[in-house]
């Protein structure tokens, strides 16, 4: 029988009740007395010079309170990039200012250049349509290769070309890698596109700005994955508001997947407008705005070379990538294609020589930033695709070639040639598990059944490893991070023995309110129902960095454990005082404090009450109260890893690909709530399969986004996906955090795209289409069918 509570129990989620009753509080559900409404004017051209913006007619329209343009914000700060990345030649990256509203030029379709605030949303929208802007269209820079080749058309006039930086990792390895590839008996080269994606959290972004003229306090309610980071950016960098005068609240947030990490100009606008008007100002994005102006993801063009011995032993990997950053640098846009990508380029394998080159390129498209997986899916896709092609060329089974090159359990801690030290793992064991749950042995029979239906069945297998639990501040600081990536927790024990846990993590679907309570309940031996998890409000929680990069449990959860341990230490002192014993003689177990070797004991509740009714405390040595805060900075990244298998059926008449089955064997270390972990994997798989088969952001050559609605951007639907087989029984606990957890939020999205593509190529080869070496994602019917035609 599984446990019914505490660590390891598949507890149902407490937060579900409010969501299922329609009683969640998402930002757009919040209405503040006296609020006005903002509507943004967004560029309809990808690139243009802003001339006169005529607002006279709009200003006279009913209900209009204020109109803002870029001119109003030209003297405030820009929205900065969070990481500094230098170029190979030692020059710094280029950081053009990202203004609140476009000023001088518009740089992508959807770039906001004006905003109207009115009494009602409809009035603001009507007035926005009456604004006449003279925007002279300029040639758009859309294609990355062209942007690099032809610096005459520049996204940012003040830069000499469209390259943000040209990064080599590790530059000192380059000559050695080049030599190894030149001398290798076999080299497989592959050109890959990692397709641009639009995150599409189901809740569109929304923000409400408030200003209290009596106190000078601001309040921002917003759709954020990290309220403190947003506060830091909008207050300290952009508007110049003292941080202590701004509260940022991220209430229930309807998914993020990275896109709600970042600070966006709309947040600054509603705060500035609230200050000017002296009343609250609310903005809610329409889905069209989300498509045009949320940060997009991926968008890499890569050449990868894998050098091997004839027996498949890996010798070297070399990659050259163009990575799109769009029109402006979003907050994590510089780290995503570099340190979250290049450092994973050894995968799960012993590859002695690895070199990664990434050129980031400005284009007249929406900013591109971290999206679920963030750099690691791109690395995984490149490695796992090229391995599959190499295996085929060398006549080695794709599972076997991977096994031959795995880093083995006895090699940990293992330092890769790209700068990471994997602490633990067992890739052979996860592969064994996969072979079992995917029933690889039964594939031939299933293939024959598909063939009888006239369908080509293929099997694709791949591995992945990710660096998450983001992140050790020492390491990332040395690599250019401008922030620390620790986290924090405060545990407040109330006099009646129940607890409020204030965490820097933010839950936007992850179920922290349930899982974090399980961690503390286990530690203290009390029921989860006595524990409340508080998150998302900078006026309540300690300074934490929020949720992304599969960090919540590994980093924020570790901070909770540390703070809880401090509580236990303090409570022992109180218990010792109550029992007239020495604190070191007091033992805490199952919610009870006892003096070792005696029958004396006091329970949790009595100690908590005493903490707040300290009638006989020795006040010099024992403070009243029971509340502790801990900051936790991880010693290393965590390294979840796994092996995935996909079976597809391809209709040779149409090229349509159907996912016949998908199996995922993951090693997440210890598991707090398997129900939640499985849900996270399912969701990641759906996003990865979406990337592989249906999704792709497409700009035309003039920079118009052709996929700007759910009619055109193909989100995976229920009938595009099967039931998944997932397994997390292979567990090598993280060696450096107190829970031994690794994180599970991104794995599915990282590991699944190559499995799908490998499966389709396998199906085509088995069907006789042996000329098809690779098809770029998404593998739509037309792409697959076209590739099949000789």
């Amino acid at each position, binding site marked *: 029988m599984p446990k019914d509570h505490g660590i390891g129990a598949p507890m149902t989620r407490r937060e579900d009740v409010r969501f299922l009753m329609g009683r969640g509080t998402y930002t757009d559900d919040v209405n503040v007395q006296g609020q006005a409404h903002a509507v943004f004017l967004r560029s309809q051209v990808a690139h243009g010079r802003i001339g006169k913006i005529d607002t006279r007619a709009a200003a006279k329209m009913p209900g209009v309170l204020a109109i803002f343009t870029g001119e109003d914000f030209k003297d405030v700060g820009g929205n900065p990039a969070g990481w500094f990345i230098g170029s190979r030649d030692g020059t710094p990256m280029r950081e053009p200012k990202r203004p609140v509203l476009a000023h001088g030029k518009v740089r992508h379709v959807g770039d906001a250049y004006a905003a109207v605030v009115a009494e009602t949303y409809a009035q603001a929208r009507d007035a926005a349509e009456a604004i006449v802007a003279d925007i002279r269209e300029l040639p758009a820079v859309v294609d990355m290769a062209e942007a690099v080749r032809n610096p005459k058309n520049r996204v940012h006039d003040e830069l000499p070309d469209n390259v943000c930086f040209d990064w080599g990792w590790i530059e000192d390895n380059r000559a050695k890698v080049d030599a190894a590839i030149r001398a290798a008996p076999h080299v497989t080269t592959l050109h890959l596109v990692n397709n641009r994606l639009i995150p599409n959290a189901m*809740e569109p972004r929304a923000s409400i700005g408030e200003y209290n003229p009596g106190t000078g306090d601001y309040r921002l309610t917003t759709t954020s994955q990290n309220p403190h980071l947003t506060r830091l950016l909008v207050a300290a960098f952009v508007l110049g508001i003292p941080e202590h005068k701004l509260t940022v609240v991220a209430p229930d947030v309807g998914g993020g997947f990275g896109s709600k990490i970042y600070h966006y100009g709309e947040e600054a606008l509603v705060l500035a407008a609230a200050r000017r008007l002296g009343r609250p100002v609310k903005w809610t994005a329409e889905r069209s705005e989300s498509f045009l102006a949320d940060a997009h993801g991926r968008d890499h063009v890569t050449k990868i070379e894998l050098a091997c011995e004839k027996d498949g032993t890996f010798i070297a990997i070399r990659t050259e990538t163009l990575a799109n950053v769009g029109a402006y640098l979003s907050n994590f846009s510089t780290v995503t294609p570099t340190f979250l990508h290049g450092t994973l380029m050894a995968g799960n394998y012993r590859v002695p020589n690895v070199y990664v080159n990434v050129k980031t390129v400005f284009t007249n498209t929406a900013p591109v930033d971290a999206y679920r997986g963030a750099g690691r899916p791109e690395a995984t896709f490149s490695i796992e695709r090229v391995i599959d092609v190499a295996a085929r060329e060398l006549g080695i089974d794709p599972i076997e070639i991977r096994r031959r090159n795995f880093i083995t359990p006895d090699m940990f801690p293992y330092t890769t040639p790209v700068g990471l030290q994997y602490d633990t793992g067992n890739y052979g064991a996860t592969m064994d598990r996969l072979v079992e749950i995917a029933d690889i042995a039964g594939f031939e029979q299933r293939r024959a059944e598909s063939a009888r239906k006239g369908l080509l069945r293929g099997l694709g297998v791949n591995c992945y490893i990710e660096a998450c639990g983001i992140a050790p501040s020492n390491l990332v600081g040395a690599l250019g991070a401008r922030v620390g990536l620790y986290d924090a927790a405060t545990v407040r024990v109330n006099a009646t023995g129940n607890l409020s846990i204030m965490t820097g993590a933010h839950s936007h679907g992850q179920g922290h309110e349930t899982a974090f309570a399980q961690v503390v309940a286990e530690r203290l031996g009390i029921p989860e129902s006595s524990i409340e998890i508080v998150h998302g409000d900078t006026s309540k929680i300690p300074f934490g960095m929020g949720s992304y990069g599969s960090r919540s449990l590994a980093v924020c959860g570790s901070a909770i454990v540390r703070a809880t341990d401090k509580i236990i230490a303090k409570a022992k002192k109180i218990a010792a005082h109550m029992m007239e014993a020495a604190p070191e003689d007091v033992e805490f177990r199952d919610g009870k404090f006892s003096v070792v070797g005696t029958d004396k004991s006091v329970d949790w509740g009595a100690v908590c009450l005493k903490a707040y009714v300290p009638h006989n405390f020795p006040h010099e040595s024992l403070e009243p109260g029971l509340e502790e805060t801990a900051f936790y900075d991880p010693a290393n990244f965590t390294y979840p890893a796994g092996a995935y298998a996909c079976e597809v059926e391809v209709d040779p008449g149409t090229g349509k690909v159907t996912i016949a089955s998908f199996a995922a064997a993951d090693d997440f270390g210890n598991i707090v709530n398997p129900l939640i972990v499985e849900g996270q994997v399912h969701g990641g798989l759906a996003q990865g399969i979406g990337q592989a088969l249906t999704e792709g952001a497409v700009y035309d050559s003039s920079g118009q986004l052709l996929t700007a609605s759910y009619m055109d951007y193909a989100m995976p639907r229920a009938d595009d996906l099967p039931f998944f087989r997932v397994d997390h029984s292979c567990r090598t606990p993280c060696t450096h955090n107190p829970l031994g957890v690794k994180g599970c939020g991104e794995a599915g999205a990282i590991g699944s795209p190559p499995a799908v593509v490998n499966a389709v190529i396998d199906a085509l080869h088995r069907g006789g289409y042996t000329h098809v070496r690779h098809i770029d994602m998404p593998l739509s019917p037309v792409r697959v069918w076209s590739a099949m035609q000789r």
Partner: protein
Amino acid sequence: MPKVTMTVNGMAVSGEVEGRTLLSDFLRDDLGLTGTHVGCDTSQCGACVVHLDGAPVKACSVFALDAEGAKVTTIEGMANPDGSLGVIQKAFQDHHGLQCGFCTPGMVMSAAALLKENRKPTEAEIRAYLDGNICRCTGYHNIVKAVLAASGQDVSRIAAE
């Protein structure tokens, strides 16, 4: 402005609306029933599904005035009379059929409509019926499982247990 009157979750309600006011806006802004979510502006995401005279509709594609005299049920009307989670809602919780919760009201309303017309739907029928409801979090696995369970079918053998 014209006045509209309807019955929402068994309560007679009325309000003054513009001709262009959508049912979703009337429910959210005028009645404060913010459980009905708006996830797109093109009637495709399904987060705003409510029942209009018993049939599922996307509330963002119905004018409030067109619901004059109608009986509307929203997610707020789906709990048991004692305030506990209804059968479908409970199945979603038991099988972890929701994560961020934003698409959930529409999913539950669509699932309820399906189970009204098909008491024991197959997996394929559920997947086809929910085609108009987009979820970005769950990969649909646990949603489909929850709907199967809500219809009284055995889900213990479904993968990933």
